[in-house]
């Protein structure tokens, strides 16, 4: 017999028994999987993936590097601790990056994003966006005076197109794609000439950007369109280099004549000084604060939203507490937790006797009572909350009755709404069924003979209840409390309607950031924290009470 215990068991077909069993069960498992597949897919697509993407937003910060790719790179060298401004190169990159962004109308989004971190940046970006054309026209007008050809879109096309610049085209296309979120794919009928890209790098780059935008987004023909002001600014900057001017002298390709004219009349062009131009557009550009903010938030991923959500901020000097008058979230979290606890407590106090009645009344009466308990479920949440508004307001039903009965003076009507009291009253009512139902299902399983036994053994009604019945109903209280607490902590509609300013929850703030301030990153960070808090509480509950002790039913 000893050999059979050591050898693996063999099935009738000679395979190991374990393997045979697994094969036999595989079919069942596959069928089970196929049965849940529709729901699983549905939940994945409509629920889990959006939530994950939303949570991802709480750290995602690619908008800065997508909108100002070159500026961010150039700014890396800059030390914000010094009182000096970044050098001209950074401003130059800023001009070309911002010009593109302004064409694609993405610059104001960046302004909004940075405005979360430093108030006022939104208007800086918007104002500057309007001035970018002027900053290029400064060079466009003299260049057009020097040679008429510069007015002609077809001339520019002929001069800058050629061959060998595919690589440049593709790298520009990638940057566009990151900026706009579209693929920007397609034949644009233009390939920059590699010769020009070497000789006039900024001009060619700006023109390539222009070409891609014109064809892909505006669906025009490149050669027929007049180039952006930025292209003129690029040419003016390229001409500043003596080497470039010398190269033009020996250049004989398309547009050589016009370029030579420009070199000859170089002194008629204004000096290229982007820093000064930006300073003129908006003074903030020449403050180190602004650049420090841009630098701190130029990383692709940032803890900034999370810090914000706990009343901290990320500054060039490191993580700091926010000014006291801007600290709202920690207080809001605490209030949310506290109020959810109070609501859970009131639900236990109010729900326990009802559940007891439900479990102990004769069937017919209990069913009627059960319908009354379930009735709120069949009424819209919004309707129920609005009804509470009618009841609770100062000229509302409750106050009227109290005044009529003489309990309350007409001049001192109770303020039951637009504060924490209102939220607690209305939410206790709304969440009560979630306490009653699990309590009921647990109480239903406690045989009445326990109470009888306790009484026959000499216990008074109270002792019998407290020592015998209540301990056995604790799992129901646990289940109801978890349900109510977790539902309460994330509640939104009711606090929104009856909560006023003192009675709102963190979820109302999340909703505000989603739909009004459009700071989705912060909303996502707040939501993630809420999720973590719930999970931590659940874990703590499991450790202390044990989730096995929670019963939702028989």
């Amino acid at each position, binding site marked *: 017999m000893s050999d059979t215990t050591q050898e693996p068991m063999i099935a009738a077909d000679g395979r190991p028994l374990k393997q045979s069993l697994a094969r036999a069960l595989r079919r069942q498992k596959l069928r089970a999987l196929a049965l849940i597949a529709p729901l699983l897919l549905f939940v994945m697509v409509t629920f889990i993936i959006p939530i994950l993407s939303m949570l991802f937003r709480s750290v995602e910060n690619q908008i800065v590097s997508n909108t100002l790719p070159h500026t961010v790179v150039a700014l890396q060298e800059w030390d914000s601790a010094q009182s000096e401004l970044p050098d001209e190169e950074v401003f130059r990159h800023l001009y070309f990056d911002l010009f593109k962004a302004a064409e694609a109308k993405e610059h104001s989004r960046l302004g909004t994003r940075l405005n979360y971190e430093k108030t006022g940046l939104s208007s800086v970006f918007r104002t500057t966006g309007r001035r970018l054309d002027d900053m290029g026209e400064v060079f466009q007008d003299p260049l057009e005076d020097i040679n008429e050809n510069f007015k002609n879109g077809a001339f520019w096309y002929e001069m800058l197109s050629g061959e060998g610049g595919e690589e440049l085209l593709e790298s520009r296309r990638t940057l566009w794609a990151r900026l706009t979120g579209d693929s920007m794919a397609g034949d644009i009928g233009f390939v920059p000439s590699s010769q020009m890209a070497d000789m006039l790098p900024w001009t060619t780059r700006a023109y390539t950007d222009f070409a891609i935008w014109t064809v892909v987004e505006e669906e025009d023909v490149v050669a027929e369109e007049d180039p952006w002001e930025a292209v003129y600014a690029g040419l003016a900057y390229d001409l500043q280099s003596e080497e470039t001017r010398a190269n033009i002298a020996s250049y004989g390709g398309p547009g050589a004549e016009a370029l030579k004219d420009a070199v000859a009349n170089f002194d008629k062009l204004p000096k290229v000084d982007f820093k000064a131009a930006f300073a003129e557009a908006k003074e903030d550009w020449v403050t180190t604060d602004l650049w420090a903010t841009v630098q701190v938030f130029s990383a692709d991923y940032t803890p900034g939203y999370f810090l914000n959500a706990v009343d901290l901020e990320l500054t060039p000097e490191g993580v700091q507490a926010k000014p006291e008058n801007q600290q709202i979230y920690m207080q809001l979290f605490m209030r949310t937790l506290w109020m959810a606890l109070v609501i859970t407590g009131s639900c236990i106090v109010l729900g326990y006797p009802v559940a007891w009645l439900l479990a102990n009344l004769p069937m017919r009466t209990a069913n009627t009572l059960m319908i009354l308990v379930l009735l709120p479920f069949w009424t819209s949440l919004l309707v129920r909350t609005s009804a509470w508004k009618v009841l609770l307001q100062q000229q509302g039903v409750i106050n009227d009755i109290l005044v009529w009965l003489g309990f309350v003076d007409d001049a001192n009507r109770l303020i039951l709404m637009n504060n924490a009291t209102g939220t607690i009253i209305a939410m206790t009512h709304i969440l009560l069924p979630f306490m009653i139902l699990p309590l009921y299902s647990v109480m239903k399983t406690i*045989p009445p*003979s326990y109470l009888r*036994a*306790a*009484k*026959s*053994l000499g216990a*008074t009604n109270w002792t019998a209840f407290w020592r015998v019945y209540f*301990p*056995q109903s604790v799992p129901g209280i646990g289940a109801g409390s978890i349900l109510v607490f977790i539902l309460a902590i994330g509640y939104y509609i009711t606090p929104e309607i009856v909560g006023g300013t003192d009675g709102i929850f963190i979820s109302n703030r999340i909703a505000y950031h989603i739909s009004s301030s459009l700071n989705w990153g912060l909303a996502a960070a707040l939501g993630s924290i809420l999720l973590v808090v719930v999970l931590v509480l659940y874990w703590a509950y499991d450790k202390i009470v044990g989730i096995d002790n929670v019963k939702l039913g028989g």
Partner: protein
Amino acid sequence: MAADSSNDAFVEFERVQKSYDGETLVVKDLNLTMPKGEFLTMLGPSGSGKTTCLMMLAGFETATHGDIRLGGKSINGIPPHKRGIGMVFQNYALFPHMTIAENLAFPLEVRKMSKAEREEKVKRALDMVEMGDFGGRRPAQLSGGQQQRIALARALVFEPELVLMDEPLGALDKQLREKMQFEITHLAHRLGITTVYVTHDQTEALTMSDRVAVFDDGRIQQLASPDQLYESPENSFVAQFIGENNTLEGVVEQIKGNKCVVKLDDGEVLDAVPVNVSKVGERTRVSIRPERVEYNTDRLDPDAHTLSAEVLEFIYMGDIFRTRLRVAGNEDFVIKTRNAPDQVRLKPGQKIKIGWMAEDCRALDA
């Protein structure tokens, strides 16, 4: 043991009625007296009112009318926890969140006994049911029989004078049930406790009780010791309900003192004791126990009436033989004979004569 001395009555029901819905009476006019130390069983089919009586005695139901007295005092208005009656429930009702020792200490605790006294009594109670080592366990860790003993110990630990048991052995298997029947009776007699026991199992009732109250339709049909109940049922319900029974229907032809002659519907006549028939011409149902039927006519009185019968089936049951006959048109007439060496084994199809001692056959209500 059977006692009907009302002067030392311990438990008394006087004209007790109970209705739940105000339309029908579940208990109709119940009168019962029980002396101290008696083991009384309430036996009856479900819905006969026996459990209701027990609950009224325990105080969980109130009597609609009538008086219930305990030790001479009316307890109608006393709440259950002040009655001091021990009770064993059908499903034991051991508190699942307490250990066995805590369960046993519970009645002592609510009586505000000191800790030392409590421990002493709990230990004694556990020893009494031979469960001394189980104090630290939870009810769910015990088998049915063990739980049953603990429930018993808990009902007895505070030394009540009266103990009520509501079908306490219903959930046990046959063997264990028989063992517990013996243990419970033994314990009750040893401790001299007055016990009211409710069951629907007639064997249990017969083997355990001093007296049995047979309930049907909200009334006590007969209250008597087990032997009287079995041998002298007072009406056809009791005769049917207790033990196996053959019945034949007919009309009373003549009554002579404590003997009567009944003419069956097919014209045959037999002898019986008139129990609740009073006049000639009345319809009656005669009842005879299977083991009192005699087919060896030599053993009968020479002038006794006999009936002709045909053997339909012979069943060998080990200790006894069970033979099914057709008698006066009744095909379910059963006789039981001991498996003795000289016993005749009847064969199906055989025609025989059967008869009995007139005092074994009782003419009851139709």
